[in-house]
């Protein structure tokens, strides 16, 4: 009898399963095959074994620029975004009258965030004749017009800012997590004379750690996948300062007709992301506390 129920279940999810198999799993396996070939899209792939990987790690300067840009982004933007999200969540964790309105407003950037339209707008804002320069001129009398998105020292920061601006989704999750912390704990701490920082470190953070863990993992994975912003706002420039890994994959595969190399790069990215995720999981035993007491 249970067999019928299992079968029913599979049938219900079959549309998604078939889609997944055809459009996600199958291409992944093809890409694994392509990673060991030279494939210029216009003619058939030629097997070259580990050639792509060899070139990648020994003969491609731009490859390391891509890693540098991506890792900078992951290690700066993600923590900043989470810190911001937590700070705002704590601010909102009070009995505000317009709480719903504030929540929605802060969440809005995330909704529209990953899109091309916002990236184009961001480029406008931080360009030579953009809004930021106008504001600086009007409010601070700064007359020199800097192009924030094309200057080597600031280009990456405009992109980091764009990522941090989309803190809304992490904030919502933090807010939900905060609300679950029993008020009685804070009251007990107050009675014992604990200060704000102490309460934060000893109560809020540990009890929020599962949520933090989740946001961190998601943030890291999404950070490694950053693409749209790099393409639209700075196009990887200037001279590859913001050449995100996936952007480089795109360039190599579609612009320079090296799909095999791009596939190899994609698999290296997958393995690296998995490695980072595993590291976070492994360390989680020591800093993530679940209320039930055990994982």
């Amino acid at each position, binding site marked *: *009898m249970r067999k019928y129920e299992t079968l029913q279940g599979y049938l219900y999810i079959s549309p998604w399963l078939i889609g997944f198999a055809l459009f996600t799993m199958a291409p992944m396996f093809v890409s694994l095959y392509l990673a060991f070939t030279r494939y210029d899209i216009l003619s058939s792939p030629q097997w070259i074994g580990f050639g792509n990987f060899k070139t990648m790690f020994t003969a491609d300067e731009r490859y390391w620029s891509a890693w540098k840009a991506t890792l900078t982004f992951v290690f700066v933007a993600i923590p900043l975004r989470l810190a911001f999200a937590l700070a705002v969540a704590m601010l909102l964790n009070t009995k505000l009258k317009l709480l719903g309105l504030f929540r929605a407003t802060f969440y809005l950037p995330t909704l529209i965030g990953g899109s091309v339209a916002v990236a184009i707008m961001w480029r406008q804002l931080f360009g030579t004749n953009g809004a930021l320069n106008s504001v600086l001129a009007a409010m601070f009398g700064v007359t020199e017009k800097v192009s924030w998105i094309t200057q080597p020292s600031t280009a990456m920061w405009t992109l980091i800012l764009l990522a941090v601006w989309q803190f809304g989704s992490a904030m919502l999750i933090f807010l939900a997590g905060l609300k679950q912390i029993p008020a009685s704990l804070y009251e007990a701490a107050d009675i014992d004379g604990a200060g704000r920082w102490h309460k934060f470190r000893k109560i809020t953070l540990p009890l929020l750690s599962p949520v933090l863990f989740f946001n961190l993992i998601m943030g890291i994975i999404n950070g490694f996948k950053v693409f749209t912003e790099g393409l639209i706002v700075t196009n990887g420039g200037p001279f590859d300062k913001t050449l995100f890994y996936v952007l480089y994959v795109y360039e190599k595969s*579609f612009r320079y007709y090296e799909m095999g190399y791009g596939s190899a790069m994609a698999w290296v990215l997958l393995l690296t992301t998995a490695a980072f995720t595993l590291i976070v999981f492994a360390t989680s035993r020591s800093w993530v506390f679940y209320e039930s007491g055990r994982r």
Partner: protein
Amino acid sequence: MRKKTSLLGSALLATSVLISGCGGSAGSGDSSAAPSGGASSSASAAPSDPGEKITLRLTIWGSSPMTIGKNDAVIKKFEELHPNIKIESENYAGDVYFDKLSVMAASNNLPDIIRIDYGNIQNYASKNLLLPLDPFVEDKTINLDGIDPVHTEGGRIDGDLYGLNIGNNAPVMFYNPKMLEEAGIAAPTPDYTWEQYEKDMETLQGKGLLGDTHMGMQVFAVWLRQQGAKLYGEAGDKLGYEDDKLFSDFFDIQLRWQKKGIISPLGTELEIKGLEDGPFAKGQAGFGAGLGYWSNQADVFVEALGGPVGYALYPGSGDGKGMYIKPSFFHSIAKNSKHPKEAAQFIEFYTNSLEAGRELNGYFGIPYKQEVIDGMQDILTDTQKSIIAYLETVRQHSSKIDNPEPAGHSEIQKLFKNVSDEIFFEKITPADGAAKFRELANAVLGKPK
């Protein structure tokens, strides 16, 4: 019993959801704009009879309203003459165009008529994606009688004609005649030197204006030709110049201009997306050479500046070694097009018929069939007449165009830009940049194809 019925019910439900879901996309955010699936022609591959409806697909490069409008006008005229043929055109601008073409090539979905440029046609022909046009030339579907071969030979690769040149073009340095006059600068002649160019830009700076922008790879290629070298070697497997001083001189000069402030700041230039965004188009600079403009783009600047523009050879072109005439685009037929004869008819109409010529008015390049030029005299705008005159000047001061760029050219363009930006942001010296560019470019060119 109940369990069996509900099993059947869930099976039906799942299937109906599956079928209904088939229509939409996977929602992964992939946005391929044009619904190119619709057009593909009917099953018969045999030559069609007049009664049968045929649809041809055409891809064009460009996104400005003028580009699309002129193209559609020609299509309409063609469809009037051939009521059984319908042409669907898709347009993409910039780098995206070639990205899209390569995806179409990979999925065996190339359009019947492909607009392809000199740089890419060799790559596509060598990969066996294009149909040789010679049979159509022989049976006069494409009528090349009376046409100087110099106009059509650009499309001939390894003896076969793979594309028909849709119009001639040449690199050009635009200048703003009013601005130059007000600044007291004489209009450039064919003997214009680099020294005079620098002096004139300084004069403009004195009036609070800019001279020009930094020089891109297109100008660099002409620069090399002026010094007797080339950008790529004959076989396309290494750079065409041995002396790195040619590279570092090119950048030393520009660094000097940059320090003097007579060219626009690099930061502003990096933000430029379209033709209308450059300092010349915005009326801030007196000359427009650095960004690599072409003679057929004159209309855009005439409109942007609200008045006639001046056309000049690049500085240092007096001895005729540097400049060249180039086919603007080719029309090619995809190897697996189901209606090659109709596609050839359209190609012929577009390039060699007077009706099309009158619609296009030289927008995609100057026509080269004498009857078309003659028949257009009454409608040629001043701009077109100026362009034709300019092309004649170029013809007198030019040498044969370089071979088509090798397959790694777009990557090398990017590498050149990267090194060039590094030099201008003063992260490396021109001498180091020369060595770096050589190393990177040779690595790309040396790859087995």
